[in-house]
């Protein structure tokens, strides 16, 4: 039961500089981010399978989740 989370560039440091990480389905995006140690409030946009979703979206098996942080700019 897994899905793929792909964080934007500046967030990769939270997952060991990897491009993506496998996450469990059945949790919300927000809960998943917290488990990974990524503060949800720095995520501006969550895109699941190409569609924008809220952080309360419950992850389904096989989903590809992109999390866009706004920390890289400034």
């Amino acid at each position: 039961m897994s899905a793929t989370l792909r964080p934007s560039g500046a967030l990769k440091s939270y997952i060991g500089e990897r491009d993506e990480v496998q996450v469990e389905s059945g949790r919300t995006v927000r809960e998943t981010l917290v488990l990974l140690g990524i503060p949800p409030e720095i995520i501006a946009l969550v895109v699941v399978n190409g569609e924008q979703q809220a952080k309360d979206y419950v992850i389904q098996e096989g989903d590809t989740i992109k999390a866009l942080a706004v920390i890289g700019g400034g």
Partner: protein
Amino acid sequence: MLNGYGGQILRVNLTEGKISKEPTPPELARDFIGGRGFGAYFLFKEVPKGADPLGAQNKLIISSGPFSGMLVPGGGKCDWTTKSPLTGGYASASLGGHFTAEMKYAGLDSIILEGISPKPVYLFIEDDKIELRDAADLWGKGAIQVEKQFKDKLGEEYQVAVIGPGGEKLVSYASINHDYGRQAGRGGVGTVMGVKKVKAIVIRGTRSVPVADKEAYRQAGMALYKACKEAEFLPEWTRYGTTVVTSWCDEVGALPTRNFSAGSFEGGKTLYGPVMRETIVITDKGCFGCPSPCGKYSRSKKYNLEVEGPEYETIGMMGSNLGISDIEAVAKLNLLCDDLGIDTISAGSAIGWAMECYEKGIFTQKDTDGLDLKFGNVEAAFSLVEKIANKEGLGALLSEGVKKASKKIGQGSEKFAIHVKGMEQSAYATHNATAMLISYMTSDVGAHHNRAWAITYDLQVGRDKVVPEKVARVIWLQNFRPMFDVLGGCRLQWVELGIDRDLYVPAIEAITGIRRTWEDLEKTGERIWNLTRLFWARENEDFGREWDMPAPRFYEEPPTTGVTKGQITKLEDVNKLLDMYYEQRGWTSEGMPTSAKLEQLGMAELVA
């Protein structure tokens, strides 16, 4: 021949109708590079101390940079600098679109408008054919209508920068409109164009630009475009543009709500980027050479209009800040401001302030020309925008900006006039975001976000923390980020797409023949920052620490609703932030550059 430059400075003496050109000094290009650097230099050196912003001695300086019109992503920016009629200090507004490319191809690095024309004119530039032409029949017309008129007559390849009635009537925050929906918006650059009686600048150039190393230039440019095209979040940034951050600001309590009395808006959801995209956006629109077009063209069926926008700043200032949750109403306010030629940020702030005065009983319907100025009253907001641009009734007071308006009205209204140095704060609420707060407090034009968008850093390190690292981050951003405005490029590919900034270094070298690392560029940024600070001090006798203070709302009045409910930055912390900032800048406790700092930056002679 100056590689990467048009090679000439154009001077237009409007009083005498005299037009002249001079070669761009190589040492100016070496030390100030272009764009905002050229603007700051000419302003400091050529506008005499004490010049009236609305007098003949003030100048309007328009400058392209080495990236303008070149094979560099976002090379569509130019800088508009003047002594601000809104603040009495330094004003510099960045304009996107296609104007700067035509400047470059016409061989112009700066256009300097001097004096005051005795009658309305427009400046026509087609390579070496440069003329002041009569604009009597254009005076009084809307900016969008005038641009269309020129394009219909001359063709799409001519670029037009034009003021609306707000600029003609000298609204203190009049903007300059271009490409139908792009503006040099802040600080009253359009006001200065208006007082000079220049309705428009129409420009077309056909020359090539000399570059130092053509093959290296091609390679460096292609590497930058490739990085943009491969950026993982390019589709999302293109789809939503700056409105990506609307929902995020609401979520973290940074969305200005009812004149910045809160940072989250109960009606915010209908203003979010995805809602806007689905309901009103019809296409994307980019500036010259842009691989990630952030502009959104929208159509409102409700109001029967089309407009470029609204962007995040306009959504924040003319949506939530006015208690308005209808994105179509925001689109209409956006179009009204663009066509009338006034800045949406300052206008949104002025109307928000007036609405709060009304709700508090400081204004009654007698003061508002009968308008029921409650937050959320869309029709009243439409009406007030027109009144501001035409300086009618309450609009005349609001056209002066919230600092002057609140001083006239008093009754405590100064406390909720949201500005720094007289410039209305842009769309980030800073009740509990100390890095963004010090960024606004110390920005070189007043409370504008584009120098250091530090609010993200607040979220990273703890929003209420008052630590030297935050101040250091803001100073680094202030030195580095405006270098895009110096180079004539757009910073959004770096901010949004996360492009490695080192990719720009070979492009600068290939174009100009001068190798500049980011360390060198940041040093230039620091010199310009100190120069503009000295300009503020020279032009304002009482300039000092007090000028850097934020609106009292952010240290006295915690929001009673939303995510930041009950949160505030203590006055003691505001002062601590300033102390740290001055110390790290090498300035005195009153915020003035020390002679040692100026010596270290090699500026002692320049400012003597």
